C-alpha cells in the first residue's frame, strides 16, 4: 500500500517532540516513514533533508554512516543482544561501524547515561536478565550515546506496562531535551499524544484509493 507523507512533514523539525499517530494499520504506515527518514528506504519522489544533508543522494555506505552517527533508534522490542551485557549493548553501535570510534570518553558517557536513566547497577548484567523497563532504558542509552540529531522511537512504549511507560517517556523526553535532539515517535497510543509538541496522524494522509494499487 503506497504511503503519501504528510505535506507538513517536509517542514523543518528541530528540537521537537513529534508523534506520528498510526491507527489500526500502524505497522504498515509507520515502517516506511521510519525507513525513509533513516535512509533505509529511498523515496520515489522528493527528497529527505536532515541537517541540510540530502539523505537520498548519499551512497549506500554513506547513508549507513549517516544513520549511525545522526539517528538513534529505539525499537518496540528493544532489540538488545542477549549475548551482551547491558553496558556492551549500549556501546554496541560503536563496535559495528567504522564511522564511530570507541574511546574512553564514550565509555564514560555510556556510564553517565546509564546513571541518568537509573541502570548504573545493571550494566554488567546480561540483557536477558533485565526487566522490560531496564531493557528499554538500555536501548535508550544505546540510541543517545552518539548524540544523534534525530531519535526514532518506533512504538517504544508499546511493550511496557503503564507505570514503566510513563517513566520511560519522562526519561526519553528528558534526555532528548538535554541533547537538543528531535524525537520522532511512531505510536498508535492516543494517551501519549498530549506529551508531544506536534502530532501527525497518518490516517489523514493514506488515500482510500490509490492509482496503481
Amino acid at each position, binding site marked *: 500500500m503506497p504511503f503519501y507523507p504528510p505535506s507538513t512533514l517536509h517542514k523543518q523539525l528541530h528540537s521537537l517532540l513529534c508523534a506520528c499517530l498510526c491507527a489500526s494499520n500502524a505497522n504498515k504506515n509507520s515502517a516506511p516513514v521510519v525507513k525513509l527518514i533513516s535512509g533505509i528506504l529511498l523515496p520515489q519522489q522528493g527528497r529527505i533533508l536532515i541537517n541540510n544533508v540530502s539523505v537520498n543522494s548519499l551512497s549506500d555506505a554513506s547513508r549507513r554512516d549517516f544513520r549511525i552517527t545522526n539517528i538513534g533508534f529505539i525499537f518496540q522490542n528493544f532489540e538488545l543482544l542477549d*549475548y551482551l551485557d547491558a553496558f556492551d549493548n549500549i556501546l554496541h553501535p560503536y563496535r559495528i561501524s*567504522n564511522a564511530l570510534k570507541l574511546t574512553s570518553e564514550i565509555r564514560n558517557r555510556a556510564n553517565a547515561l546509564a546513571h541518568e536513566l537509573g541502570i548504573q547497577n545493571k550494566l554488567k548484567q546480561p540483557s536477558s536478565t533485565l526487566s522490560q523497563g531496564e531493557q528499554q532504558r538500555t536501548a535508550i542509552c544505546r540510541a543517545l550515546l552518539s548524540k544523534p540529531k534525530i531519535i526514532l522511537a518506533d512504538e517504544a512504549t508499546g511493550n511496557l506496562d503503564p507505570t514503566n511507560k510513563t517513566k520511560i517517556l519522562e526519561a526519553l523526553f528528558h534526555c532528548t531535551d538535554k541533547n537538543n535532539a528531535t524525537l520522532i515517535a511512531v505510536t498508535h497510543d492516543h494517551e501519549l499524544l498530549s506529551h508531544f509538541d506536534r502530532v501527525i496522524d497518518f490516517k489523514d494522509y493514506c488515500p482510500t484509493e490509490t492509482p496503481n494499487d
Partner: protein
Amino acid sequence: MIDSLYLAWRYICFNRIKTITLIACISLITFLPLALKALLSASEHQLMSRAITTPLLVGAKGNALDLVMNSLYFSTETPDFINMKVVNKIINSNLAQPIPLYIRFHAKEYPIIGTTIDYFEFRKRQLASGRYFALLGECVIGADVANLLQLKKGDSLLSSPENLFDLAGTYPLKMNITGVLKKTNSADDKAIFVDLKTTWVIQGLGHGHQDIRIIKDPSAILARSKNILTASEKIKQYTEINKNNLASFHFHGDQSIYPLTAIIAEPFDAKSATLLRGRFLTEHENIQIVRPKEVIDELLGTIFKIKNFFDAIVLIVAIAMILAIFLVFSLSLRLRQKEINTIFHLGCSRGIIVQLIAAEIFIIGLFSGLLCLLALFILGHFQEQIVYKLFIS
C-alpha cells in the same frame, strides 16, 4: 576487526555448547587423518629401520611375519623353535656370521633376549654404564627398562614365570644387572639382554643345586648305587647365580639340540647371502630363511592398503561433517537474522556483518586448530607405545 572479534567472542561464550560441539567436530575430523599419517609414518620408520639393518633371519618354518616381529621387535608371539645345530651349520658354511636369539621369557613385562655379545656389535649398541654380561645370570638392560623400573648397574631383576598356574614350572631366576645400554629409540631400549645359556637356565635346561655328594641329610638321597646318586625334592635348587654357586650350575643333555627362536645371519657378502639362502631353501624342510625387509615391506603394503581405505572413509566423513558444519552456520545465521536486521537498521555496513561472521569462524577454527595440535602433541608423546601396541606386540 578487534571489535568484531570481541563481539564474536561474546557470542561464542554465550553459545558454549554449540561452540564446543563445533570445535570438537572440526578438531576430530582434522586430527584423524593427521594422526593416522603420523602413526603410519612412525610405524614405517620403526619397522623398516631395523629390518633394513638385518640382512637375513633364520627360523622355524611357519609365519615369516611372526619370526621377524619376534626377532627384530621382540613381540610376544613366539615362533616355533629351531636348535643350536642350525647355528653350527651356518658357522661351518663359512658364508655368514650367526647371532643366535632365544626370545621367550620376560621380566616384569619386558622381554629377556638370550643372545651372544656379537648382538651388541651387530646392532652398534653402546653402554651408558657398566659392562656387558660375562657370566651366567648376568644381564644388560635397555635404557627404558632402566628408566621405567628405576634400575641401575649392580641391581637385580627377577624373571617372570611363563604361566602363573604352572606351579611345577621353572623357578624365577634373579639376574644381576651389569650394564645399561644407551638409548637408541628402538626395541632394544625395552629389552633385557642375557647370555643364551642364562635363558636355558630360566627354562630349566640348566640348573644349580646343593652338592648331593656332601649332603648330610640322608632323606635327601632317594637311591645310591656305585656311580649314580638319586636326589629327592629336598635338594635345594638355586634361584640366583652368584660366585659361590656358579660352579654348581650345569646343563643336562645334548646342548646342540637346545632351543632357539631365530638366528640373525650376517653374510660376508652378497654372494654368500645368495648361497646361504639357496642352501636353506633346498636342504632344510623345517627351516626358513627370510629377508626381514621383504617381510616388513609386505606388512607395510597391507597397512597402507588399509590406510587408503581408512583415508577414503575419513574423506567421506569429512565431507559429511563439513556439510553439517555449513548447515550449523547457516542455521545460526538464520537464527541471528533478527540481530542482523537490528544492526543493519542501526547503520552497520555489510562488510562489518561479514567481518562478524568471519571472526566467529576464525575463533572456532583457531580453537579447533589448537585442540588438534594439542591432540597431535599428546599422540606424539605416546606414538612409540601406540605403534608398538598396534603393529608390533
